[in-house]
């Protein structure tokens, strides 16, 4: 998902942190579905796991502004232009709430953001794919925001209060984005031949990368166990992926579009849509920095940061002078 969690788990086992009685008390609170708040005692590993997840999520929102931002100046109508700009602005807002949630875990936004720019922090693999056509804006809203919702609705019940509350706010906006994206696809799918072709092409390109958003298969997932125990994660990667496929395949059919998976079929017995093999090598390559847009995305964020350095310095210098004058 936005936090595909492939950073190797280096934490020591839970029991090694704090004394046994404190750990038991912490786990009992989690088990009783009590929210953990910033000032509550928590195991160091819980704090680190959350900080990694929340900051990756925040970075994804910010980097995620770029592929869609690519179409703001070329949006095909004023209504679409306004909606797209507002959507990308929402994503920036999500980044801000999430950095604020991360800051409750003894981190600063500057330090987290520096880690991103230095290539030390991850963001979702999905934002390393390009948006060559307008239909990509529809496909991202429908599929990427759709996948984000699948993952984030359970996070509204995450044991950590600030993260759960941020997710409640974010989810409302994401479902609006998802409907808007679907509506763009619907307009294209009912449009001219050129528009239909554009819609199908976008679906062909986004389908598999969207399935990869949920992270590696459960058989390879490295640190779901503690996250599950601590009620940060409530469904496994494969469970969420299956939910997404089950929800999305009928929508694609409704649009009259086909999915780029010859093995896709409905399994009557389980009631699930079964999909073919995901190319996990592609996923690993994208996470390792070799996706189609990894370089451009990071270069764009670094350029904005570097070009803006004098502005931030000026704001700081003015605030200092202002304080000195007032004193």
């Amino acid at each position, binding site marked *: 998902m936005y936090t595909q969690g492939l950073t190797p788990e280096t934490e020591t086992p839970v029991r090694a942190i704090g004394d046994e009685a404190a750990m038991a008390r912490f786990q009992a609170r989690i088990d009783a579905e009590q929210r953990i708040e910033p000032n509550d005692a928590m195991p160091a590993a819980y704090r680190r796991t959350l900080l990694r997840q929340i900051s990756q999520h925040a970075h994804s929102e*910010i980097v995620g*502004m*770029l592929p869609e*931002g690519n179409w*703001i*100046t*070329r*949006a*095909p*109508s*004023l*209504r*679409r*232009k*306004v909606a797209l*700009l*507002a959507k*990308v*602005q929402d994503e*920036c*807002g999500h*980044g*801000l709430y999430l*950095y604020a949630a991360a800051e409750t875990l003894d981190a600063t936004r500057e330090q987290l953001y520096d880690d991103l720019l230095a290539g030390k922090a991850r963001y979702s693999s999905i934002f390393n794919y390009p948006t060559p056509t*307008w239909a990509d804006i529809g496909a991202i809203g429908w599929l990427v925001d759709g996948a984000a919702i699948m993952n984030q609705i359970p996070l509204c019940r995450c044991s950590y209060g600030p993260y759960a509350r941020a997710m409640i706010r974010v989810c409302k906006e994401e479902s609006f984005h998802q409907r808007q994206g679907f509506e*763009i696809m619907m*307009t294209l799918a009912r*449009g*001219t031949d*050129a*528009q239909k072709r554009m819609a199908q092409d976008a679906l062909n390109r986004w389908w598999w990368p969207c399935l990869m958003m949920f992270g590696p298969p459960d058989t390879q997932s490295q640190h779901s166990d503690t996250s599950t125990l601590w009620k940060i994660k409530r469904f496994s990667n494969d469970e969420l992926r299956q939910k997404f496929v089950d929800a999305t395949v009928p929508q694609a059919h409704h649009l009259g579009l086909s999915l780029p998976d010859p093995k896709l079929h409905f399994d009557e017995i389980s009631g699930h849509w079964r999909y073919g093999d995901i190319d996990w090598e592609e996923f690993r390559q994208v996470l390792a920095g070799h996706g189609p847009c990894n370089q451009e995305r990071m270069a*764009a964020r670094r*350029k*904005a940061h570097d*070009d*803006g*350095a*004098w*502005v*931030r*310095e*000026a*704001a*700081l*210098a*003015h*605030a200092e*002078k202002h304080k000195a004058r007032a004193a």
Partner: protein
Amino acid sequence: MSTASISLSKEPLVRFILRRADDALVLGHRLSEWCGHAPLLEEEMALANIALDHLGQARALYTYAAEVEAAGLDEDAYAYRRDPVDYLNVLLVERPNGDFAHTIVRLWLYSAFMSLWWQAMTGSKDAQLSAIAARAVKEVAYHLRHAANWLVRLGDGTAQSHQRTQMALDQLWPYAGEMFTSQPDEEDLIATGIAIDPETLRQAWLTRIMNEAAQALLKMPTAPFSQQGGRSGNHSEAMGHLLAELQFMQRTYPGAQW
């Protein structure tokens, strides 16, 4: 349905509305170019808000122009299907974003004027225009405050920020005068209280600009207001590139619905 350009109405009220709608569209478009590239995340939010306000004003005005013209056009026909010479915005708003200082100075010069203009237009005898003005007046108050706050931060901040801001002011100044020009076909609209004469706002604008420039430790430029022409369709080179992006989809896929 075609890619063909629409022709510009000769009706003075339509043209009057389009001039202001084009200002708002072009500045909104320019500000939206910052999205994803702003100097800090809070500024991503602010610049997007301000761009959205301008695009909203443009839509309200185009929609009203379509109603007045009654030629079966809509907001998108005006925004996307005119030839470059038929866009009537002032040259100031089509200036490229440049660095953040340029963007702020352009917004400040323009908003200082528009806050007076919209305020005056709330008294327009045209009920639609006065209703659009009543809403815009609140929006522009925020744009002006935002721009003026940054102007002071940048002008007073570091040696580098001061120098960049002074340079932006010097470079944009020659474009500011066009905002005070009115067109011959506006005379009757002004006489009947539908439009206002922008020349009447010049002194209040200048007082405000001089005052805020002083707070930002900036020197007032002495250059004349030499750059004009957008209001009569004589645009800069930058405008062609802006329109190439803006119109791309509508021109490439004639008649499609989006």
